[in-house]
């Protein structure tokens, strides 16, 4: 597992840029992988499509997942991740603008590790990202690797 890699699934490029900038400014992570839609995210994680031939066991330390995504939405992506034995223990944090209770409930039901609401106040948002990075990349013990059988 690449322990410093954050996998951001986000279609809003402004958000992507600003997130990258915020993390970089706070020296959390230099490497950030971005997928702009759900399909692409799954392709990367399961080494299919454009990412065919990638080492399957090379998983990011954290997936930041937006819910509203083109093609395949976040909840569906989460469901696939949890359904696969390779990725079922992967830390997934939902990062979204939505504050619908329904989304919250469903995310946790599907096994999200955390749920962060993107604040409009970017200062607050950047703060949240910093906490996230510190927590998941530094404090948190990653799950054991699933050995292929």
């Amino acid at each position: 597992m690449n322990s410093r890699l954050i996998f951001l699934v986000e279609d809003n490029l402004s958000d992507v840029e600003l997130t990258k900038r915020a993390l970089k400014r706070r020296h959390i992570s230099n490497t950030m992988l971005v997928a702009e839609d759900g399909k692409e995210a799954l392709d990367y994680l399961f080494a299919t499509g454009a990412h065919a031939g990638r080492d399957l066991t090379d998983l990011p330390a954290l997936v930041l997942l937006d819910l509203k995504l083109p093609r395949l939405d976040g909840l569906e992506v989460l469901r696939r991740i949890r359904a696969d034995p390779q990725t079922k223990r992967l830390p997934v944090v939902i990062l979204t603008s939505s504050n619908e209770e329904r989304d919250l409930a469903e995310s946790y039901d599907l096994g999200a590790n955390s749920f962060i609401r993107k604040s409009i106040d970017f200062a607050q948002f950047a703060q949240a990202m910093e906490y996230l990075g510190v927590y998941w990349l530094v404090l948190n013990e990653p799950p054991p690797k699933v050995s292929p059988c």
Partner: protein
Amino acid sequence: MPMGSHLEKTLRRVVAVCSLGAGALALLALVGWVFGNWKIGALGNNYVPMAPSTALMLILLSGGLFLHSRWPASRAARRLAFLAGSSVGSMSLLVWSQRFLGYQLPVERWLAPATAAVGAIPVGLTSPLTALTVLPAALALLLESPPLSRHRLCRWMAPTLALGAFMASLAVLLSYAAGFSLLYGSRTVPMALPAAVSLVLLSCGILAAAGPLAWPIILLEAGPVDSAASRPRWSMLGPLALLLFLLLATGIAGSFHLRQLIESARLTAEREVLTVADSKAAQIAEWWQERRTGARVILRTPMIQARLLQFLSGSAPAGRELLAWMEMQRELNNYRQVVLYDARGMPRLSAPAEVSTPSAAHNQHFQAALRAKDILTTDLHAYGEAARGEPSLVTLSLWIPLGVKPGTDAPAQGALRIENDPYQFLYPLIQSWPGSSRTAETLLVRREGDQVVYLNELRHRASTGLFLRLPIDRWRSLPAVLAAMGQVGVVEAEDYRHVPVLAAVRGVPSTPWFMVAKVDQEEVYAPYRRGAWMTMIVLLALVLTTTLGVGLLWRQRDNQWFREQQQADRRLNAELEERVKDRTIQLEASNRELEAFCYSVSHDLRAPLRGIDGWSMALLEDYRDKLDEQGCRFLERVRSDTQRMGRLIDDLLLLSRVARGQIQRSRVDLTAIAQSVAARLQEAEPERRVEFATQAGLAAQGDARLLEIVLSNLLGNAWKFSGTRPLARVEFGQTNVDGRPAYFVRDNGVGFDMTYAQKLFGAFQRMHKASEFPGTGIGLATVRRVIHRHGGRVWAETQVDQGATFYFTLEEEV
């Protein structure tokens, strides 16, 4: 339910009238007995009165019925009704059974003099028929009162029994109305007329007391009553009146016809008895004359006289010749015996030879005959002593004095006694009846002092010839007495057996006898009586079946109507349901659209805002050295407006969610919510000093999440608008408004002008300048939405600078 309550009211009135009427009649009879004038309770001179025991039973029953229906809720009344029903039921059973079991209840003789009677019927005794009719009435009352009335079977049985009692007493009443009282003339005590009337009323009352749902009464009611106001009301009144009229007309016509039949039967019977009496009287008179003539021939023929006297004086050698003559006379005239006596009274010649033992009066008759100048008749009398129980030897003797010397006082020198045997001609004549009859008979009586003596053997009683003697003063209406008193014609009276008879009475010419030719009334009227019974039963059955038939038909018609109505209703309902379903689908679709829209808003509208804010901040962070102070201030304004926009979007989303979501009701602890909201507010602005007063133990039914939104908004407003006060005070509690609990949130803040109060709860309505008090103007609109969705209302009371109080109510707990 206009008809139901109407019928119920009518029934209650019927019960009251019937029970009071029945009770009053019985009471009247009882009062009559107490004052010794029982004819009051008879309603007719020749009718039997209501017995005291009957009166007592009827008073108890009607009293019980009245109490029971007048105060149906009263326990005491119900108990009394039950007691009356059970006691009268058992009493009637005892009364009815006493004639089989051979005892007499003491109450049967209570107040009633033992000797009083109407005809042969002793008064003061309850008729078995009455007892048998009272029994079902009492049982019906018993079954109608709790606890028995709770059973379905009892509720069905009660009206049936009452109907039975009603029919029985009505039949008796009709028989009275037809002038033709049932059971009169038989050996049973008949039901008294007032008892019949009282019982008709009583059973009617008990029937009505069964209520509008009892089976014979429900026929008057049609189908479920509470539905459909425009139901056609088939009037029962017309057919009912027609039926009643027909019944009355038939009854009256029938009774007239019956009366005529009876009258003609009576006339025929009268003619018959008169003819028989006249012809027999004529025959007897003729026979009598023959006897007299035969004797007179002997008296008036000197040759015979001389021969007889010669023999008596002993101057004629032998009596052989005379004896032969006497024998010839006997045979010719059917005499029983011809005896020749000498002057001392010794029988000298007798044909036949043996002389029967003379009776005690024999000598007197002989002496009288010697002094008589003419033939002496000794009327029918017992000749000799008859053994007890056997018919005595009855005879009728003619004494012919012999050797009468006209113009002197000297007695005759002998006498010839001619003895007539009534069994030979007289009695057979009397006992014969032309045509066949079960009961008809003729009889001959004579008067002896204050007695009438029956001369012949009677058809209905043995050994009466000359032995049956009845005192005139105690048998004033006896046909025989009437005849002996000289009455001629036809009478209706009771004979020696106390049986009512139709009798022709008259004297028999030139004899001391009187003739009675009679036939039992029962025989004369029996066929018509039976016919009347049959007619009445058929008529009643006809009426009953017609009524039931009409009732059933009527119900069926009504049911048909209801069925059609129901079908129409069902069709309409189905249509409505279809429409509702369509609308619901449309509504659901638009709701889904709205939800999708809101979701998009919450997600997509916020993202660019965050971008604006983020890039503004990036500018500030990365290019601060290239911007002057004003440029930085502008960027700060961009950021604050962006955030304001974000709050607006959030509030709008909340308002829309509040309007759409399902309400999940549960018990909500309002006090706890208020306290947590207060704590949150204090935490957000720890520097402010605000006194929170929350009433303890406030709880309500509602959606916890939505009520928290309400309290957050109201308490948040109170917090906000009391911000200028050095000592702010916010209060949450409960009070009563128009008898319903209302919750309130009170502050001592700036308040607002009530002139604009109606705008207070609209969306985007603000009472204050944004620079004074920030806000989106959506909070109170959300509060109102939530409260409305809970079925309550929300309002405010305030004055500028005097603080504000917001009240809200929630729907009553269901």
